[in-house]
């Protein structure tokens, strides 16, 4: 090789080495300069609450949004006539946009009128849609007509609201829907007009009338006091017609489904369904514009239930709301990374994932590790109810079998150990149900024990003998009594759970076959009455026992009216009690009626009550004013965070643990050294 070539090769080699070193240095600097903090720096003193969501809601339209994911946003963005008290339990309604709780007036013909007066000078959040009402307008006053407009939207068949049934108690609700559909079908020009014009042309809903700009009267065909709960939900929030007309998805405008325009304490300032959403205080919210009103729901409550003061829940009493400057919610689809980020302090709250349950919980309390981190556990029994049901129309397990079938149902009920079920399948997160009424709902009694929901194998066997099935043998066939368990859960976990029940019944000698199908086939079976034993559940829409006990009201029978009474239970006494209890105020008489209804259910056993779910939520110590509502109600306006404590904790908890990197580096060197030696030898 020539000398020049050698020098050139050496020079190129040096250059390459320098480039390599520079790259390594750059990479190291980049790595060192990075942090696992997923957020850009906050403004000094800014109070931000950080959360995560798994999936974006389908729709934020308050007429159709009916899941907790959507309520997390709509509950903060929309305000309602009434709302729930943050601290009082059982949940208590109070006025929100309304000046006071409505006056109730019973008319001679059986109709009932609720009269709401809206506060004056309430404004919608600023939005471009209001330009439709005049150039340069960004907002306008909320009127009673805006609530009536939204109720008309609920009736509109094109909107497809899932809550048509409860609102159809409003006089003229169904007539309006039918008239609207007929006009649209017969007149294409009418169908092309903006919906608020269509509603006006049809004449609106008779029972949602506005005698003056700030008064709304709701007229019901017959007494239905539960309507007040529905009027505390976003379904009946005031909605400006401008928003519906403007946000139609045309010409690059978003759809109303994705662009809420409300009057709640927050506005949705960023909404990227795939990545994040941000809520910031709504400067037009009456709590911020008129702090002098001290309106309910705009200042932190000064009274709650016993124990709230000791829990520090009354420390902010009387302070104006909201406390937060921003709510930042990021999409995190996978549960493990989501939970790890909670443990790093980057999310302020979290559920408990099953993979980490043993690490987080020890018995009923948090593990010492979690306690040392200052994490707090929020437990709340959900207002729900899961049960196994018998088809009372069935010849073997139903009413046709009379006393014999009743004793069979009682026996089957006595051998199901719900506590064991909860321990095995739900990490103990549930409360064995004694009746359909869960804790937190009027009529729930902690001391009540259902005589047929205490595990007692001997008594169950005795009942089997009395039922004419000694040892589970059906005298007609001389073999084990055969029943079918109809399920729509075909997953491996679902089948394992179902086998838990069937194994329990095997102790009585009953042979229960599992017939698992998809949901539609299961629905088909329900329609045809081709089922014996089934599993189902119900989550409350509002905190009233009526919302649970109607599931066994005769009128709701699946075979009779296609209703959710899948057990097809019909008992004249129970039905009379139900109708009486439904319209009665909470009090001793109502409680007595509920007790009698529970006794009828316990004796007749159309159901085997299983459990009410228990939600466990974890909160970091810097999050203040956390009190689970049970129902899906976001309470961002009451939340507060200690940002300094959070910053300190994040710093402490995110110091790198470097030993695994050294181990890996050592392993790498051990592999590389012989390679380098080989390299040098080969080059020589």
């Amino acid at each position, binding site marked *: 090789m020539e000398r020049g070539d050698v020098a050139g*090769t050496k020079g190129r080699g040096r250059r390459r080495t320098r480039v390599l070193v520079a790259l390594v240095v750059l990479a190291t600097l*980049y*790595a060192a300069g*990075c*942090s*696992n*903090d*997923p957020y*850009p720096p906050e403004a000094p003193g800014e109070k931000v609450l950080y959360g995560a969501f798994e*999936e*974006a*809601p*389908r*729709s934020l339209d308050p007429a159709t949004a*009916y*899941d907790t994911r959507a309520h997390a946003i709509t509950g903060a963005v929309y305000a309602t006539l009434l709302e729930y008290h943050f601290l009082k339990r059982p949940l208590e309604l109070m006025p929100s946009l309304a000046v006071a709780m409505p006056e109730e007036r019973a008319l001679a013909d059986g109709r009932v009128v609720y009269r709401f007066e809206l506060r004056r000078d309430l404004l919608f959040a600023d939005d471009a849609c209001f330009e439709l009402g005049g150039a340069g307008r960004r907002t306008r006053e909320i009127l009673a007509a805006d609530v009536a407009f939204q109720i008309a939207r609920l009736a509109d*068949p094109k909107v*497809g*609201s*899932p809550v*048509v*049934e409860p609102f159809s108690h409003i006089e003229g609700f169904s007539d309006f829907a039918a008239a609207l559909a007929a006009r649209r079908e017969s007149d294409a020009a009418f169908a092309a007009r903006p919906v608020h014009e269509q509603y006006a042309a049809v004449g609106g809903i008779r029972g949602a009338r506005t005698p003056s700009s700030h008064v709304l009267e709701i007229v019901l065909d017959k007494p239905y006091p539960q309507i007040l709960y529905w009027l505390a939900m976003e379904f009946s929030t005031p909605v400006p017609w401008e928003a519906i007309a403007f946000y139609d*998805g045309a010409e690059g405008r978003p*759809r109303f*489904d*994705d662009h809420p325009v409300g009057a709640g304490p927050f506005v949705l300032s960023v909404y*990227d*369904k*795939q*990545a994040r959403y941000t809520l910031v205080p709504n400067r037009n919210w009456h709590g911020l514009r008129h702090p002098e009103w001290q309106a309910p729901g705009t200042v932190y409550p000064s009274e709650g239930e016993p124990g709230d003061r000791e829990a520090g829940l009354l420390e902010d009493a009387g302070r104006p709301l909201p406390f937060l400057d921003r709510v930042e919610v*990021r*999409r*995190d*689809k*996978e549960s*493990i*990374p*989501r939970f*790890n*980020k909670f443990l*790093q302090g*980057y999310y302020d709250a979290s559920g408990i994932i099953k993979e980490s349950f043993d690490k987080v919980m020890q018995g009923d309390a948090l593990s010492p590790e979690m306690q040392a981190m200052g994490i707090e556990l929020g437990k709340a029994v959900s207002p729900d109810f899961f049960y196994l049901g018998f088809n009372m129309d069935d010849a073997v397990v139903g009413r046709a079998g009379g006393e014999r079938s009743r004793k069979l149902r009682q026996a089957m009920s006595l051998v199901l150990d719900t506590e064991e079920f909860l321990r095995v399948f739900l990490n103990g997160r549930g409360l064995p149900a004694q009746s359909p009424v869960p804790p937190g709902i009027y009529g729930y009694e902690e001391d009540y024990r259902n005589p047929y929901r205490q595990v007692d194998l001997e008594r169950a066997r005795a009942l089997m003998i009395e039922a004419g099935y000694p040892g589970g043998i059906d005298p007609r066939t001389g073999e084990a009594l055969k029943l079918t368990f109809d399920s729509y859960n075909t997953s491996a976990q679902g089948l394992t759970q179902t086998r838990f029940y069937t194994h329990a019944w095997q102790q009585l000698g009953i042979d229960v076959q599992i017939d698992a199908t*998809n*949901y*539609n086939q299961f629905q088909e079976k329900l329609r045809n009455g081709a089922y014996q034993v089934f599993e189902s559940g119900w989550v409350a829409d509002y905190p009233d026992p009526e919302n649970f006990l109607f599931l066994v009201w005769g009128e709701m029978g699946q075979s009779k009216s*296609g209703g959710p009474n899948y057990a097809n239970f019909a008992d004249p006494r129970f039905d009379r009690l139900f109708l009486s209890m439904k319209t009665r105020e909470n009090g001793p008489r109502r409680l007595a009626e509920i007790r009698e209804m529970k006794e009828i259910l316990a004796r007749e056993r159309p159901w085997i009550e299983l459990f009410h779910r228990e939600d466990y939520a974890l909160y970091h110590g810097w999050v203040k004013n956390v009190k689970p509502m049970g129902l899906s109600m976001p309470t961002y306006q009451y939340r507060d965070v200690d940002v300094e404590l959070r910053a300190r904790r994040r710093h402490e908890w*995110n*110091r*790198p*643990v*470097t030993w*695994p*990197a050294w181990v*890996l580096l050592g392993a790498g060197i051990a*592999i590389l050294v*012989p*390679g380098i030696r*080989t*390299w040098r030898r*080969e080059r020589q």
Partner: protein
Amino acid sequence: MAAYVIRRLAYGVGVVFGVLFLLFVLFFAVTEPDDIARKALGDKAPPEVLEIWKQNHGYDRPLWPWQDWGDNLLFDHYRKMLSFDFGLSDADDSPILDRIRAGMGPSLSLTVPLLVLSLVVAIPLSLVVAFFRETYIDRMGVFLCVLAMSVSTLLYIIGAQFLIGKLLRWYPISGFDSSLAMLPRFLALPLIVGVVSGLGSDVRFYRTVFLEESSRDFVRTARAKGAGESRIMLGHVLRNAMIPILTRVVLAIPFLFMGSILIESFFGIPGLGSMTVDAIQANDFSTLRTMVYIGSLLFVLGQVATDLSYGLVDPRVRFE
């Protein structure tokens, strides 16, 4: 060449039609319009609302042509896809085209650097391993490659999230932020996982290609003329191995737009891969068929582009 391209595109049309048919059959074999409606509206939605939803989305029509020749879901499925009328998502009624536009940026911000980094890392490593064939470096290299190929991508993801995100705390465990200041922070971990998880197969493939080229006559000739080993590897072997490298790269390019299903899902990157997974989980037929359709179109176009690129790098290649 034109005849060749037309023939290949004609084959492609057949493939796309077949894919669309298979998707339709498989999807409706395991689900029903009622399931799609119920998934979209929730379990509490009353039957009349489900019916309205099905009418609004066209799922109240029969599936097959023999049930109604004029108005059935199968023909409508083909008509919409072939006219690129992707319509609205079944899950949330948002325009699918908007979602694709929104998802393409995050997907490309991951897949383009991933492709470049993979090439930058894998090709030099393969050259080194091929250069030191039959030595410790080669044997250890092949062993590590096989080991790397045997590990599931999922394990790389979980391992990297644990080691780098949870213990070393260099980067966020998951998430995405498209701002320039934050983007590198969120992409670093997915890129490390993407490069490392693909390294085994890449290095093995390129090593084989380089070894094959190394045994050619022109390499022996260059060596006989006294050319240095570095020059031989970089100037002769690498240049002549461009066809298989190009095939791999050109085939990969169309799929950059589709994103990476696993990495996007586990790192919370809101790209098209993640969108496809969401569509599967949500029984969102209209989004799923759009993604499958676009995927099959890109595959066909990628194949044709690969064939054409051969002619560019090797003038000896003729299209007949």
